[in-house]
């Protein structure tokens, strides 16, 4: 009985607290003064970089260091997940590869779908400089293609050997290396030489796409379940 009352008091307090926060935010947002951000400067400076897409310019040039750290977060998350995998289960069947047998439709579709996915990923990478797109969008598609292959059970999840590990950190290392190598030629940290800016950004984006794709695939795989936590209809 007492536990139930405590629970109710807790719920009411939480509800009051949350509504106060919501109300405070709404009032605060309605009354906030507005000053223009740096939109104008972005538009005027991005022409220097020969990048027509302002978001790409912000992500990889003006605030490139944020993106560098963001990749570090992604790689760190993958390592954190890998740490959670029990050692002997590293190759155990992940849930998505242990589902019901793939339908004939899926097997028919797979070889036709994959090239399209890869093509679109390549396009997104290339288009990133002038239109919406870029490394993350391309990487997501690469990751999705890998997940589809795993789902169709045509391939088992790879054991993370040296090559896979290298691909995993390739984007981060390439970004850091290009940022630091500039120091040797008298550039600032993370500064791209004017004539090379676009080429270097495209190179970083390409390596990032591959790394991000692999990262997303590993994050989707996650930690394999125990033997007895099978979903209905799964094969053993």
């Amino acid at each position, binding site marked *: 009985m007492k536990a139930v009352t405590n629970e109710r008091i807790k719920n009411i307090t939480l509800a009051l*607290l949350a509504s106060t926060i919501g109300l405070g935010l*709404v009032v605060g947002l309605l009354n906030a003064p507005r000053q223009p*951000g740096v939109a104008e400067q972005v538009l005027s400076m991005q022409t220097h970089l020969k990048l027509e897409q302002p978001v790409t310019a*912000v992500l990889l040039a003006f*605030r490139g260091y944020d993106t560098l750290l*963001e990749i570090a977060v992604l790689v760190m*998350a993958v390592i954190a997940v890998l740490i959670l995998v029990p050692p002997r289960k590293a190759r155990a069947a992940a849930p998505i590869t242990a589902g019901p047998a793939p339908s004939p439709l899926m097997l028919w579709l797979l070889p036709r779908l994959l090239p399209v996915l890869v093509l679109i990923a390549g396009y997104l990478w290339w288009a990133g400089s002038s239109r919406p797109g870029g490394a993350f969008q391309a990487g997501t598609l690469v990751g999705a293609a890998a997940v589809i292959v795993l789902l169709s059970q045509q391939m088992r999840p790879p054991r993370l050997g040296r090559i896979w590990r290298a691909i995993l950190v390739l984007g981060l290392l390439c970004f850091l290396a290009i940022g630091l190598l500039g120091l040797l030629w008298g550039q600032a940290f993370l500064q791209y030489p004017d004539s090379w800016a676009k080429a270097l950004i495209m190179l970083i984006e390409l390596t990032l796409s591959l790394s991000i794709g692999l990262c997303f695939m590993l994050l989707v795989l996650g930690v394999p379940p125990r033997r007895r936590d099978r979903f209905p209809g799964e094969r053993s």
Partner: protein
Amino acid sequence: MSGLSFALAGAVLFALALHAVFARHHLLRKIIACNVAASGVFMILVGMSSGGSDGRADAVPQALVLTGIVISVSLTAFLLSLLRRLASGGGAARLPEDER
């Protein structure tokens, strides 16, 4: 003023999700609530930004949100793996203080 309405909706989402993070016991619900709260914050971030003079949107908040989404995805993936490990070890998808 459509930007502001997005921001206001984001504020409401954030408050609702914040409530859910603390009020719900099942960890999966807590994790989803964190995701909803993050979406609320992103909506505020984009909705409150004022664009340039020629009506083009400010690219900075969009870039910030892209960065934020990737971080949120990474953390969610780790949380889910943690949840699966926790549930397959102890059998419960709850924190000890929420057990009844």
